[in-house]
């Protein structure tokens, strides 16, 4: 069964302001307002007509009601946040916006995330503050890198996934980032020797297996598909979105059933059911890779490959635009484009389907967005160029 709001809403505008850490020209909310106005101008909508906002990942400084004076908001009708401290809520944010629009509770909803170090502090610290407890602290677990490393170790050692797949994914991200003028790694090819000999963060992750934060803000404007037709830019339709956790997954003190997974099994199953699509219908994917191994685990969870054939699928040549079987993270992703808690990956999904990516996938009609692998709550969405 295809979900009742499949294709009934669309992204009509995008805005992204990204800076090197500590280099934002304004405090956090100023950067966010700038990105929201960018998204509205991109769509040709007066910012005052935005009537809803959704964020995720404890964006605690920017409660929507505080944005109204700058935007000239006429009426705030929808204000919500997806639970969870990590990036697991990023795709779910589109589901919340779509639900508001489909039920008439709001007409023009901004999905946003912003992060400026002086104001929000280090993201890794904030994520852990959300999930932290004395059981984790007692084991020296204070950073998202560590639970992700524990799961990755299990995937590599117990499930016999070869370590090389992490490198293949990182290479693909940096290949795309080197060709994206807006990426932090623009013009810089990944030096494999440097990757392999970089310092350990937490084994099995070395420095370049880990995403590193930028300052900035991203905003996407979502409206009904009918309204999108009258706006300036080509609509990118939301074809499916699911969030949550299956039984045996969550905030379980490392007692999750399928421990080495990224937590998407139930979310992916429902996504394919809801959208009527399958992995081989996906033309390009934006995989939130907080850490390299979790990006790979996301592909396995969504059914693109298995523990047995992962090394055949997750090969550099397969993962790059334009000709790879499934180009991933075509902007460079969190690793190589920049990391504003993953909002850049949603923006790249839209760019790719508009034909505006720096690494275009010819005739791409569908793009998967998989958010926050390994987080207690995760979410996935599929965007498309056409309504089903």
């Amino acid at each position, binding site marked *: 069964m295809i979900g009742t709001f499949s294709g009934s809403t669309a992204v009509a505008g995008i805005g992204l302001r990204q800076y090197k850490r500590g280099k934002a020209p304004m405090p956090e909310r100023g950067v966010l307002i700038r990105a929201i106005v960018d998204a509205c101008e991109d769509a040709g909508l007066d910012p005052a007509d935005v009537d809803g906002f959704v964020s995720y990942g404890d964006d605690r400084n920017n409660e929507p009601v505080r944005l109204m004076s700058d935007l000239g908001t006429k009426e705030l009708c929808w204000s919500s946040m997806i639970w969870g401290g990590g990036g697991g809520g990023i795709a779910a944010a589109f589901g919340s916006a779509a639900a508001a629009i489909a039920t008439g509770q709001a007409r023009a909803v901004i999905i946003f995330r912003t992060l400026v170090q002086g104001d929000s502090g*280090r993201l890794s*610290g904030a994520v*852990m503050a959300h999930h932290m*407890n*004395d*059981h*984790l*602290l*007692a*084991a*020296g*677990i*204070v*950073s998202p*890198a*560590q639970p992700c*490393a*524990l*799961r990755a*170790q*299990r995937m590599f*050692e*117990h499930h016999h996934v070869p370590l090389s797949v992490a490198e293949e994914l990182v290479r693909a991200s940096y290949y795309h980032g080197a060709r994206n003028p807006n990426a932090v790694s623009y013009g810089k090819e990944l030096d494999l020797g440097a990757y392999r000999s970089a*310092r*350990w*963060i*937490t*084994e*099995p992750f070395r420095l370049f297996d880990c995403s590193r934060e930028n300052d900035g803000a991203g905003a996407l404007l979502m409206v009904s598909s009918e309204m999108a037709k009258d706006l300036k830019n080509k609509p990118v339709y939301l074809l499916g979105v699911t969030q949550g956790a299956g039984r045996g997954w969550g*905030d*379980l*003190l*490392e*007692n999750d059933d399928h*421990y080495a997974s990224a937590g998407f099994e139930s979310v992916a199953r429902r996504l394919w059911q809801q959208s009527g699509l399958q992995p081989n219908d996906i033309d390009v994917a934006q995989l939130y890779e907080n850490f390299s191994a979790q990006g790979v685990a996301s592909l396995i969870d969504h059914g693109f490959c298995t523990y047995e054939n992962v090394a055949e699928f997750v090969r550099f040549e397969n993962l790059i635009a334009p000709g790879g079987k499934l180009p991933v993270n075509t902007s460079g992703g969190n690793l190589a484009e920049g990391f504003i808690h993953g909002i850049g990956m949603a923006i790249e999904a839209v760019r790719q389907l508009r034909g505006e990516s720096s690494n275009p996938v010819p005739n791409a009609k569908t793009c998967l967005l998989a958010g926050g692998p390994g987080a207690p709550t995760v979410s996935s969405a599929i965007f498309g160029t056409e309504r089903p």
Partner: protein
Amino acid sequence: MESATRPTTGADGPYWQAMAAGRLELPRCEDCGRWHWPAVFRCGSCGSWSQAWHSLAMQGQVFSYARSWHPFAGAEGIAVPYVSLVVELPQAGGRRVLGLLRGDERDLAIGAEVKGIAASTLVGETPIPAMHWFLNNAERGA
């Protein structure tokens, strides 16, 4: 080192009291026999509100491990590199508890047998009760 138990909003209060007293205790449903960890107030499997805490032998198998080298904020009280462990407890229905590895690390692998002690980990200025584990062939007291 005197360790401190801190308030909890969950059902795990007895765990901390036991750990501070030198014992490892986990809860089990008195009606269906299911071991629960994290602790629950109500058994989601059978609906029972009767959860009893059981003292357990401090031994198990390494379910996974991660060696941290980066001096993460919040872990300044632990010298790097250090190994965080997830330990599976067959005596508690395969529930897993966390802890730090001490002593010889040479035979560290998933599935390796470990024995534990009730110890404490320094978090900031505060020592909190913690399981510390040793590989079975390792010398203690590192």
